[in-house]
């Protein structure tokens, strides 16, 4: 059974290159045959917002949607979303607005290794 990498992302999609690092790690892990779970917490929830359209930088939302289509599980914290005015239905297709208790804990349970990407 393939091992599972958990990516715990707490930096926003445009704050720094952290979200790009998360995407590149996730892509490489998927290509090597690992399962990947990504949980967005705090500012990290912004990566799943549909409609991101950076003119000159990589489109993290689009890339995360593509990785979700390839099997990555992506969930972000609903409380953090509500605090930032992002609501269910506004997420990139294939991603989910969920919770620490129901989703992050499940990711941890299923995970073999976790990498935290935060400042």
């Amino acid at each position, binding site marked *: 059974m393939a091992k599972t990498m*958990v990516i*715990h992302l*707490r930096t926003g999609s445009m704050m720094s290159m952290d979200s790009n690092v998360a995407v590149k790690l996730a892509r490489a892990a998927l290509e090597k045959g690992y399962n990947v779970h990504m949980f967005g*917490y*705090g500012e990290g929830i912004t990566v799943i917002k549909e409609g991101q359209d950076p003119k000159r930088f990589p489109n993290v939302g689009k890339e995360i949607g593509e990785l979700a289509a390839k099997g990555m599980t992506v969930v972000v914290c609903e409380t953090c979303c509500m605090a930032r005015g992002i609501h269910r239905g506004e997420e990139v297709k294939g991603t989910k607005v969920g*919770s*620490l*208790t*129901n989703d*992050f*804990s*499940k990711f*941890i*349970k*299923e*995970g*073999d*290794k*976790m990498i*935290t990407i*935060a400042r």
Partner: protein
Amino acid sequence: MTDSILFIMTKPPYGFEEFFAGARASLAMLASGLIGRSTLLLVGDGTLNAVASQDPSAVKMPSNIEAINDLADFEGEVYCIADDLKSRVGEVQVIDGVKMVSWDKARELVSEHQMITTF
């Protein structure tokens, strides 16, 4: 499969939301029933969250004391590096239930927990 997670808390209270967010995430692990052990370790500036006289109402922020007490309700453990706190603010009273420890104990905690995240 993971059954234990250590939250290393590095940020001081009330300038960042990190401690509160980390404590809530730790609580969620225990509340989920999926993770058997979820522990906080306060290091560096993170040790300042253990100060008993903190008054978050002064800045209208959620209480880190309550967050620690909530963890205690779920038998979550909270450890604080004694030397780090003392070097910052001298001898101060700490929140009930916070265990003051050395780096030897911190290394034991790292070995005992299968995953580690940093806030």
